[in-house]
């Protein structure tokens, strides 16, 4: 059961071979057993989960179940959930219980899915290793000395460790794709605007997107079908005809052009990662893909552009955490200013503070033009890089990360080193394009390697097609780490 796909679980539930209560209990127990070692979850609440499971069983019994009814799903602790706390991995919201559900949660609830728990994450989604969480780091289930990646580290870890059949995450600079790659599983960031951000706590508004994390392309499609859709409560949500993201899974790959950016295969890329990715590309060529060399000349600019724009938006989005209305408030203070200062000094971790400072700086008088405005101009140029590339290919392919998972603590001394590792994922968010990562082998120390696919706007179905076809003839996505002791 722990290795079953969502369709298999659904079939078992509908066929009454297992009940949602039994299934949920099994996963909850796995989560509880492993959390000391993995720390994938910030909040588990078996009573709540089982109550939902019981309701799902009743729904299935009355013949009104859908594909996801009764299936437990873990949610990144950035999605507001009524009656479960939503901490964003931060002391600032450690006691916060939202009075409403995020759009994504509403959708899963409507489908009858069960909330398995709220997963650990880098604080306020700022990070690439899940080491900045107030609730402690998440460990990579393939190697407990390694990071899980971030910021959706808890979700990726839970799915990889078979503690949850599927999970949700968010991706602002790679926070779904990178942990998926480092944990050897599949994750997808949709085109900007496809998944409503209502109830998804904002980090960088023009870059954030919610997306699914699972163990196969087919599962990602099922999850995306539930998560995607227009929401009038999010002004950046797109109104488009609804689609079945799994409709093209079985399409043959013949003639599909995969673009390989030369900038993604040059210095900075570790050999073990390069080797696994090249083998995957060779496999795809065998399956009919045409490999085309392309160039994304502005690749190097993506990091400074992102690290100006995202912190700028974050510095403003996080201004509401001031101890006045909800969340953490310093225990002692002398006046208003002191209350603000102490609350935010104590409530936020170092990485969050770093980004707020950078963001405030680049927006401030005298620097706005040179930094923020300039970064916005460059952002457009980066997007144009991709537009040009998509004239020569259908999908861009390459490594998700330059190296396999690093050790816990290895990069914490130098934040910039951490930032540089986002090189392949970050431009995708700047352009608003969809991106996904699937496992394609193992590298140094037996740690997983991810293959990234970048599609043109709204081409999620096409990307899932490539991923699914690859997964039909390989088994990387079925490999399972040893149980943590």
């Amino acid at each position, binding site marked *: 059961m722990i290795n079953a796909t969502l369709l298999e679980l659904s079939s078992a539930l509908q066929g009454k071979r297992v009940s949602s209560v039994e299934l949920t209990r099994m996963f909850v127990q796995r989560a509880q057993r492993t959390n000391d070692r993995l720390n994938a979850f910030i909040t588990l609440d078996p009573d709540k989960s089982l109550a939902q499971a019981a309701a799902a069983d009743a729904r299935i019994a009355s013949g009104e179940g859908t594909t996801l009814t009764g299936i437990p799903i873990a949610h990144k602790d950035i999605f507001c959930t009524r009656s479960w706390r939503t901490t964003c991995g931060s002391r600032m919201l450690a006691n916060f219980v939202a009075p409403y559900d995020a759009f994504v949660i509403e959708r899963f609830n409507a489908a009858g899915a069960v909330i398995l728990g709220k997963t650990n994450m880098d604080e306020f989604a700022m990070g690439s290793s899940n080491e900045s969480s107030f609730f402690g780091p998440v460990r990579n289930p393939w190697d407990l000395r390694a990071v899980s990646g971030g910021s959706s580290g808890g979700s990726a870890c839970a799915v990889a460790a078979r503690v949850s059949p599927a999970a949700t995450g968010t991706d602002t600079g790679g926070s779904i794709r990178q942990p998926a790659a480092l944990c050897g599983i599949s994750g997808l960031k949709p085109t900007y605007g496809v998944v409503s951000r209502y109830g998804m706590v904002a980090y960088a508004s023009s870059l954030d997107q919610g997306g699914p994390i699972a163990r196969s392309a087919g599962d990602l499609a099922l999850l995306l079908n539930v998560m995607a859709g227009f929401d009038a409560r999010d002004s950046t949500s797109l109104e488009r005809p609804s689609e079945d993201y799994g409709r093209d899974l079985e399409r043959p790959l013949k003639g599909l052009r995969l673009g390989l950016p030369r900038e993604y295969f040059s210095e900075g890329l570790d050999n073990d990662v390069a080797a696994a990715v090249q083998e995957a590309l060779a496999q795809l060529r065998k399956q009919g893909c045409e490999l085309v060399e392309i160039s994304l000349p502005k690749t190097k600019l993506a990091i400074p552009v992102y690290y100006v724009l995202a912190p700028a938006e974050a510095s403003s989005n996080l201004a509401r955490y*001031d101890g006045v209305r909800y969340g953490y408030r310093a225990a002692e203070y002398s006046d208003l200013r002191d209350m603000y200062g102490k609350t935010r000094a104590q409530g936020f971790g170092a990485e969050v503070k770093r980004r707020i400072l950078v963001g405030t700086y680049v*927006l401030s008088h005298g620097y706005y033009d040179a930094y923020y405005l300039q970064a916005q101009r460059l952002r457009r140029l980066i997007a144009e890089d991709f537009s040009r590339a998509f004239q020569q290919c259908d999908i861009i392919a390459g490594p998700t990360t330059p190296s396999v998972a690093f050790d816990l603590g290895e990069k914490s001394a130098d934040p910039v080193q951490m930032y540089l590792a986002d090189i392949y994922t970050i431009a995708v968010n700047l352009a608003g394009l969809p991106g996904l990562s699937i496992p394609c082998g193992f590298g140094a120390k037996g740690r997983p390697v991810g293959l990234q696919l970048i599609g043109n706007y709204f081409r999620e179905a096409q990307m899932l097609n490539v991923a699914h076809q690859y997964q039909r003839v390989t088994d990387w996505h079925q490999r399972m780490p040893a149980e943590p002791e």
Partner: protein
Amino acid sequence: MDWEVVIGLETHAQLSTVSKIFSGAPTAFGAAPNTQACGIDIALPGVLPVANRGAVERAIRFGLAVGATVHSHSVFARKNYFYPDLPKGYQISQYEAPIVTGGSIQISVGDTSKAIRLTRAHLEEDAGKSLHEDFHGMSGIDLNRAGTPLLEIVSEPDMRSAEEAVAYAKALHALVRWIDICDGNMQEGSFRCDANVSVRPRGRERLGTRCEIKNLNSFRFLERAIEYEARRQIEILEDGGHIAQETRLYDPDRDETRPMRTKEDAQDYRYFPDPDLLPLEVDEAWRQAVAASLPELPQSKRERYMRDYGLSLYDASVLTAGREVAALFDTLVEALPQQPKLCANWVMGEIAGRLNREGSDFTQLPVPASALAGLLLRVADGTLSGKLAKEVFDAIWTGAGSADEIIEARGLRQISDAGALDPLVDAVIQAHPAQVAEYRAGKEKAFNFLVGQAMKVSKGKANPAQLSEILKRKLAS
């Protein structure tokens, strides 16, 4: 040294939408604290703003009404600062690309008319309220007001006296009520003016250092504050000092302005376009639809009154001070198209006076305009005059019925018939030989006395014109 005062006004008008500019919470005034602030208004994690179409439409109405440019593309921007009544830690406003630029408002001071140019008008959300009394060393925050839509209207520094500033504020106030975008209730804070005041030697082109004056919640305060501030600045300059650019509060009890204990002077608000909102698009179709829905504006109405009815600028201005008084006048003139001046006199005289005495205004007429039209018809056709007309007016006002019903019930028809008046006049002449002699000797006043007596005898019903004519004739012979 001949000094000139230069004034510009910044006005915040609360737009009369039912719900807030970025959320569906209600905007109604007077609710218990924090009962009209939803998740979006209190800036919970994960909430997002959604623009209120009605607020945008009211901004378009305003732009069209003042002859401004209504931009087809404008941008919401975040104005970042920390304060407990600003839940998000930023205010959603407009900065580099406001929805309206340009335009002007006509004012008249005495007999002179002048156009005050507008720089811009933009949409933004109001903050909540901070209350410092009653909380014993703490402050109470009421977020009901947070998110209420505001139109910030900025004038060019075109005003040259406190009088002009008040005239502008009043004209603007009347206009926003006229086009139904704001209820203009200054007590409730729906219409707030800040004045930017500076002085310079007359003839110099360069503007002096200005101070911004806040807390002006009546036209009276506005006038006094500007006068005080101008005097203050002139005194400093004449003593050889410099004006510090600062924000000052007007203290009505002491009739003076004082520097405000500000959060921070010269705040850097780090404006940037709000990534949660799309740029505001106003297409031609929308603009035209709004234009078509605008009523005749006060300016054109004034001009029409002067042109078609021969009314003076002053009278026309009084009659267009508000939509309701103009509507009343229009109804009356429609019933009496040959008597615009009569209608004007009654509206500005008896009716306005009565409303004033009752502490009321033209929005609260106790009887329909048609009832008053009925009265004026009887005045115009000679049935009623002077005191009688007033008596009937009083009766109509207090709900006794229509003019005709009252005239009938009280037998108040004016006596114009010579047959009835003749003997009456004879009787008066007989009764007052002394005054008759005085008149014949040249004393005009005696005539008035005799008229008065005749009116008394007729119980006020004699047609005064007829009466005078008959009396004169008889006295001459």
